[in-house]
């Protein structure tokens, strides 16, 4: 057991937990979607589209994408923090990463709710 005096902010605990929670969601989704595709065996466009047009699958898939983007935010932010030392460049990369991920979230929603 490590004894540290931790005062002030949450010291990244929330991000640490979110990283794991989103990982579990994505892992469970991967197994579920693999099982669904193995059972349905969609052969062409109609059947493939039908799988994702299902309301529950749509919900799960969107949940997967949101988990993926939040998970990616924490992971990529950590990479920038580890390797990019100049503050201005690092901040720029953080903003670009976050902006891209917010955009991807809207894109994923658009793809799914067109169905």
């Amino acid at each position: 057991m490590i004894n540290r005096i931790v005062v002030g902010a949450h010291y990244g605990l929330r991000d640490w937990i979110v990283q794991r929670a989103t990982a579990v969601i994505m892992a469970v989704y991967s197994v579920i979607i693999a099982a669904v595709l193995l059972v349905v065996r969609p052969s062409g466009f109609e059947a493939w589209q039908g799988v994702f047009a299902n309301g529950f699958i749509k919900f799960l898939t969107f949940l997967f994408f949101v988990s993926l983007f939040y998970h990616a935010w924490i992971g990529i932010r950590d990479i920038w923090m580890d390797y990019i030392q100049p503050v201005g460049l690092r901040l720029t990369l953080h903003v670009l990463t976050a902006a891209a991920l917010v955009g991807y979230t809207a894109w994923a929603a658009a793809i799914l709710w067109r169905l």
Partner: protein
Amino acid sequence: MTKVPIKKRPRNLSLDMLSRYDLPLPGKVSIFHRISGAGLFLCLPLILWLFSASLTSPETFAMFKAVFAAWPAKVVMAGLIWAYVHHFCAGIRFLLLDLHIGIEKEAARKSAGIVFAVSIPLTLILLGVLL
């Protein structure tokens, strides 16, 4: 203020030093976890574009299937499949370590070996099924 003596050791390792350093198996799992994660992130626009194409119309679906059939694209898809599978397997190992399962040195080395023993055949199976 007492002066703290500066330790004479490099703060950061150069790429040349890293390339000669024989990383233990758990270290390899870890760095491949980071590399695969970064690669998947960089390919997100491609992945979303493919996902969109597969669901939009029969024409775009045909294009999506054609991407899997074309050779240069096959290599990229193979890389993405490996990255996903490795990230998945290594991630499960990290989650178990977080739960303090298998944190002893021997157990951790063994589980690192298991990650590769599972991820590499699983990647090959998926390549066979999907590509």
